[in-house]
């Protein structure tokens, strides 16, 4: 019954007219940027962050969260209609969603995606409400060694579940941690890597870093390829047939369960969940030959999974203060600007904010269903905006956003530098998202390492003699071994062949 009381508190916060309005704005913006290829939720939230500083923290977070899960809805629209994923998490939706559209079932595919997402959104909201209090209680018993080991696990998890080279992903995290060292050392008061630039003595602004890496670098990469979406499909009737419904419902259920689990894991998130759900559907299906030719399960599963994961990834971020992906790292940064420190205490000290956010997610999902189904035609029209008009606007908003954060022109220059770095990294096959994770966790990790070593008088074995910390480190090692070992084998094989 504690749950009902908490949810009642949450809804009383969330139905406040201002919060309702910004929940709607967030969901709407999320849908729009989800539809538009070339701008994702990371960049959008970075751009809008400075504007939210004059809001109440809870209002700001409700809107920013709405952008994130709203983008999961919008991203599927372009995948289905023009075979062009609006977001990375809807890449797999192209496979069967667009095939359905070519057969004249675009309306049904859109409806299945939206209804599946809605179902997943409701379940995962409830899951956040149920799972958070016990996790927060566990978190309260953690001390410096446990926190340090938990962060190691979080960072390793991001590596294990990332695609591509493990060593490169670890490199990105370490680079992020190093960028996190810039500024005044809190313990000694010494300046680190600030090169006498006043703006750097408080550290690199995480908005500056995020906008450079995701806003500016994305523009540079997008301008290299020429993307011209063609609107070919007719939407047709929205309601799925009974046959389609019979195939889609169990797939949505499986996708929700799988997505909810993958969202909580460190390194998990919407993109990973959608790929995993597609693979699962193909494996359990009695008609795997239909996949790639317009199987409705191939839309329902991944679309439910990405929405579920987008929402459950809030659980470790809010209750333990450990972001599981770049998006959550951005929200941790946003919250700390508002003076709200995510972690086990948030449930007791900021109960209104926490439960208000949870309740707003359910309300936001209802809004998204309305925004996406009856009004779908409007968003599709937005695809007619050519990128040559979009990219100058995106760059302009990045500039204004970074500047107005500290009214500092130096930050704009720094953003340009990080844009160049992000472009170089993308060109060389690095994934810059884990870098943001390292950047946010850097100072926290150093502080917890320092505290743990002070208490143990410089004895590093403290991390393996405390049971919870040892278990967390063992898990990290296991995860790392599982991805490195096959690699070692492959290298050997290559060597033998030559």
């Amino acid at each position, binding site marked *: 019954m504690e749950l009902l009381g908490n949810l009642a508190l949450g809804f009383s916060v969330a139905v406040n007219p201002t919060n309702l309005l910004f929940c709607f704005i967030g969901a709407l913006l999320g849908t729009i940027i989800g539809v538009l290829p070339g701008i994702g939720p990371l960049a959008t939230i970075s751009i809008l962050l*400075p*504007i939210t500083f*004059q809001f109440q923290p809870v209002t700001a977070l409700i809107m920013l969260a709405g952008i994130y899960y709203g983008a999961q809805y919008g991203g599927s629209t372009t995948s289905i209609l023009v075979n062009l994923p609006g977001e990375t998490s809807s890449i797999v939706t192209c496979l069967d969603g667009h095939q359905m559209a070519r057969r004249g079932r675009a309306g049904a595919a859109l409806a299945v995606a939206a209804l599946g997402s809605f179902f997943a959104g409701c379940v995962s909201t409830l899951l956040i409400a149920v799972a958070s209090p016990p996790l927060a209680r566990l978190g309260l018993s953690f001390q410096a060694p446990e926190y340090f080991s938990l962060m190691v696990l979080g960072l390793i998890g991001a590596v294990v579940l990332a695609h591509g080279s493990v*060593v*490169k992903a*670890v*490199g990105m995290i*370490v*680079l992020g*941690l*190093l960028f996190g*060292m810039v500024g005044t*050392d809190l*313990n*000694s008061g*010494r300046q*680190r*890597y600030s090169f006498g630039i006043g703006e750097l003595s408080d550290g690199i602004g995480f908005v500056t870093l995020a906008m450079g890496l995701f806003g*500016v670098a994305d*523009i*540079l990469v997008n*301008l*290299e390829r*020429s993307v011209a979406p063609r609107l070919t499909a007719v939407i047709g009737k929205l309601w799925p047939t009974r046959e389609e419904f019979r195939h889609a419902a169990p797939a949505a259920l499986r996708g929700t369960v799988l997505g909810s689990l993958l969202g909580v894991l460190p390194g998990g998130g919407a993109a990973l969940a959608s790929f995993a759900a597609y693979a699962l559907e193909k494996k359990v299906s009695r008609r795997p030959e239909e996949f790639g030719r317009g199987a409705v399960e191939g839309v329902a599963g991944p679309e439910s999974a990405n929405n579920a994961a987008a929402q459950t990834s809030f659980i470790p971020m809010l209750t333990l203060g450990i972001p599981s992906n770049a998006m959550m790292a951005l929200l941790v940064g946003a919250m700390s600007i508002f003076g709200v420190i995510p972690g086990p205490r948030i449930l007791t000290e900021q109960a209104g904010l926490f439960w208000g956010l949870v309740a707003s997610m359910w309300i936001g999902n209802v809004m998204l269903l309305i925004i996406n189904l009856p009004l779908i035609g409007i968003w599709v029209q937005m695809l007619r905006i*050519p990128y*040559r*008009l979009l*990219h*100058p*606007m995106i*760059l*302009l908003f*990045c*500039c*204004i956003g970074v*500047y*107005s954060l500290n*009214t500092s*022109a130096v930050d*704009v*220059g720094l*953003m*340009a530098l990080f*844009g*160049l770095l992000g*472009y170089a*990294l993308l*060109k*060389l*096959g*690095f994934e810059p998202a884990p870098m943001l994770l390292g950047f946010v966790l850097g100072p926290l*990790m*150093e502080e917890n*390492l*320092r505290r743990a*070593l*002070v208490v143990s008088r*410089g004895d*590093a074995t403290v991390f393996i003699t405390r049971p919870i910390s040892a278990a967390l480190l063992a898990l990290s090692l296991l995860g790392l071994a599982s991805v490195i070992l096959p690699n070692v084998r492959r*290298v050997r094989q290559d060597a033998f062949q030559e």
Partner: protein
Amino acid sequence: MFQRQDVLGGLLLVGLGVAGLVFGAPLEMGTPRRMGPGFFPMILSWLLIGLGGIVAIGGAVRAGATASRIAWRPLILITVATGAFGALIDRTGLLLATVAVVALSAFAGRDARPAEVAALAVTMAVCTAVLFVYALGQPLPLWGR
């Protein structure tokens, strides 16, 4: 060999790690029991050098993807546009900075049309002034400080 993605990428990480060591040299290491300001940065810099080395050597030993060509036009124009905004915002204010960033960045693409760019730049200048300065009350100088 130096066109290979992983060789270049690895060397980039090594370079950043070396920079971390060089510029972090004045910071005291301290002892594990009393970590100095240089303790954690030094660990990270060495880790970065090690990881970069592994990536670079791996790229040199195995034949891997070569880095694709750099598209200089967007790279230069977008960077210059961003720099122009930073240089102009305090001196001439939001309106002119907006025109500069929109006009310069629009020509980063290959299909820019001069008349359209001019219209977009003026429209955006008016819109940002109304939206950010009047509606949202952001502390942006319209005509410089």
